[in-house]
């Protein structure tokens, strides 16, 4: 067992390579390379050529193995896409619950296999539409949910025991999840049959996406409440989607995305263990969410390295026994920040390349961005092209026929190894700080990302980094794109509906539920049972979140730059 190339062979290759390099240098005198430095979009140097010498110590059994087997570098399932394709899960949320429901029904009729809900800003922040802080924001980047009533409309006509539902929600995740459970049970689908995901990843909110409610410590406590409750009562639900997506969108490098996400994952596992949960009881339901950016090979290396590092951490650091605990299962979204407002149809091409990287990297689920997403919520036509992009990859290109087809490429294995090493260095640094919560308090990941994003913007300005249509091949003609507009009357309609719900509910029951919720917060009881009861009694999202804010306090952005 050991390296896959014989030592003598590698020595021969190295000496041949020297000869090639000499030959190349001679050629370069009259025809130099186009650029002095070739780097990935993250700034990692890329060599002109990779050979067996670059992976001379590569150990197939230890570093690669087989699909569905430790260390899962080649994929978490044994059959991968030959058995089952990834879930094509398009994120949608269009202002009103009625309109979003229509989009869901349409996407399902077009072959989509999972639902994914985008909420509007007030819902994401735990405010009702009528709150003064929410004015002007109703429905701007997703659907507005104030009460169970909205949730009932949103999922009307959808088979919740057959479809899985993802909800991109963070600070109020326990509240929205409670509403979903209450809604499903009213429809006669018991909680143990429900499948889906809540994002529920507050660490990356403090690091990157910046929707806040309570400070980091109580935020962690609420997350562990959901993990604990899910483990016991909603076994098919992924109670957290540990997300690198937003870290990358905030301007991080690929390595930072990988390292901070896995360090967040480690922090959640530690917090759940501290609660006294058995690692194999909850770890199989931890899921991940990564970005698919435009630097093709770097992204593929990132996904492969992610699986390898996570499997090792779960097995050796946290002593997980169950095979499923070692799997890094992940959803991918193509990079919104790589799309351009200029010449928007080019975004179709970018998204296709990114989706291909995600598929070659072994994703379990994928959202492809619509070309107009850089301007506004996608129109139906744009969302359909994005879904068709995935269907073309799955049905026409043949890339799904063989598992992890780029394995063994000198470059891919070399990049995967480098990515792993660099991420491990970051994770070690964060461990040395006392873990991710402490690192966040020190503003460490936030400033690492700010530095990277500023550097990237400078490179664009200097044109050492090119974005087509932005700083090269610029045209000045206006390209007409139909932009989705939020109905301006929506806000008033939504406020009126919530008021109507409030007028017709049993107010005394709601008050009792909220009081019990407050007690659960103070007494360190799991908040989920109280939340489900309150949601079923039509307590509003903000009423429930205000209980959290009252007990735990409010987190404010430090505003560093």
């Amino acid at each position, binding site marked *: 067992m050991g390296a896959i190339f014989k030592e003598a062979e590698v020595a021969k290759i190295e000496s041949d390579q020297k000869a090639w390099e000499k030959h190349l240098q001679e050629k370069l005198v009259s025809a130099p390379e186009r650029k002095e430095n070739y780097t990935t979009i993250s700034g990692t140097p890329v060599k002109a050529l990779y050979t067996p010498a670059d992976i001379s110590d590569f150990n197939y059994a230890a570093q690669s193995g087989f699909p569905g087997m430790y260390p899962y570098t080649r994929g978490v399932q044994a059959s991968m896409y030959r058995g089952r394709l990834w879930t094509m899960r398009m994120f949608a949320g269009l202002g009103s619950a009625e309109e979003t429901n229509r989009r869901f029904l349409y996407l399902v009729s077009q072959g989509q296999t999972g639902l994914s809900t985008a909420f509007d*800003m*007030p819902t*994401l*922040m735990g*405010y009702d539409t009528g709150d*003064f*802080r*929410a*004015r*002007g*924001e109703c429905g*701007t*980047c997703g659907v507005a949910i104030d009460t169970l009533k909205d949730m009932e409309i949103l999922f009307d006509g959808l088979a919740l025991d057959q479809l899985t539902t993802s909800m991109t929600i963070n600070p109020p995740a326990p509240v929205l999840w409670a509403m979903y459970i209450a809604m499903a049970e009213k429809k006669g689908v018991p909680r143990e049959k429900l499948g889906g995901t809540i994002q529920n990843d507050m660490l990356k*909110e403090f690091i990157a*996406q*910046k*929707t*806040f409610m309570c400070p980091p410590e109580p935020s962690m406590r609420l997350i562990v409440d959901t993990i604990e409750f899910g483990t016991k009562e909603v076994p098919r639900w992924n109670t957290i989607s540990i997300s690198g997506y937003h870290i990358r*969108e*905030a*301007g991080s490098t690929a390595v930072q995305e990988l390292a901070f996400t896995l360090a967040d994952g480690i922090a959640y596992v530690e917090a759940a263990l501290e609660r006294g949960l058995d690692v194999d009881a909850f770890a199989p339901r931890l899921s991940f969410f990564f970005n698919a950016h435009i630097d093709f090979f770097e992204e593929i290396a990132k996904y492969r390295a992610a699986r390898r590092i996570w499997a090792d951490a779960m097995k050796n650091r946290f002593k997980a026994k169950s095979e499923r605990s070692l799997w890094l299962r992940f959803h991918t979204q193509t990079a919104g*920040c790589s799309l*351009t*407002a*200029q010449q928007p149809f080019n975004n179709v091409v970018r998204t296709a390349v990114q989706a291909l990287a995600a598929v070659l990297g072994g994703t379990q689920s994928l959202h492809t961005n619509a070309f107009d997403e*850089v*301007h*506004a919520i996608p129109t139906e036509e744009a969302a359909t092209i994005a879904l068709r992009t995935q269907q073309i990859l799955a049905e026409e290109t043949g890339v799904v026929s063989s598992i992890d087809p780029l394995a063994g490429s000198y470059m891919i294995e070399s990049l995967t190894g480098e990515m792993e090493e660099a991420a491990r260095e970051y994770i070690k640094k964060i461990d040395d700080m006392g873990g991710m919560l402490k690192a966040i308090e020190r503003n460490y990941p936030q400033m690492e990302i*700010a530095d990277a*994003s*500023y550097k990237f*913007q*400078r490179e*664009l*300005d200097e044109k050492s980094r090119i*974005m087509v249509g*932005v*700083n090269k091949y610029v045209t000045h003609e*206006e390209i007409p794109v139909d*932009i989705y507009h*939020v109905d301006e009357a929506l806000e008033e309609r939504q406020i009126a509906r919530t008021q109507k719900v409030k007028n017709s509910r049993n107010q005394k029951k709601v008050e009792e539920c909220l009081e019990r919720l407050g007690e659960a917060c103070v007494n360190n009881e799991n908040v989920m049972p109280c939340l489900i009861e309150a949601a079923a009694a039509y307590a509003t999202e903000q009423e429930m979140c205000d209980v959290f804010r009252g007990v735990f306090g409010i987190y*404010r*952005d*430090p*505003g*560093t*730059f």
Partner: protein
Amino acid sequence: MTERKVRILVAKPGLDGHDRGARIIARAFRDAGFEVIYTGLHQTPDQIVSAAIQEDVDLIGLSSLAGAHMHLFNRVVALLKDQGADDIMIIGGGIIPEADIVKLRNLGIREVFTPGTPLETIVDWVHKNVKPR
């Protein structure tokens, strides 16, 4: 007498958490030699206007990427006027459709910078158009 430096408030109105652009532009302004105050996220128009007055700034840069710019920018303009501080210039940036830019200009937002604008263009604009009050 040496002229004091231009003072700029970079502000994030509303609930939108996309602060990549605001933080980059705050750094670029600082690197260009301006005095920069950044509000941090989730500010109401009232908070932004009182910060602008207290900090005695010459320019407010409002950043919005989640679609609520019309309502929020409008409120900042109106509140500044109410406070008699409408000599503080306002510019905007973010994901703002062309049709809205025209409306925002009519409201009194002096300039709106959309994605893809080089930092230098924005810094030059400030040099050219903003003098310490």
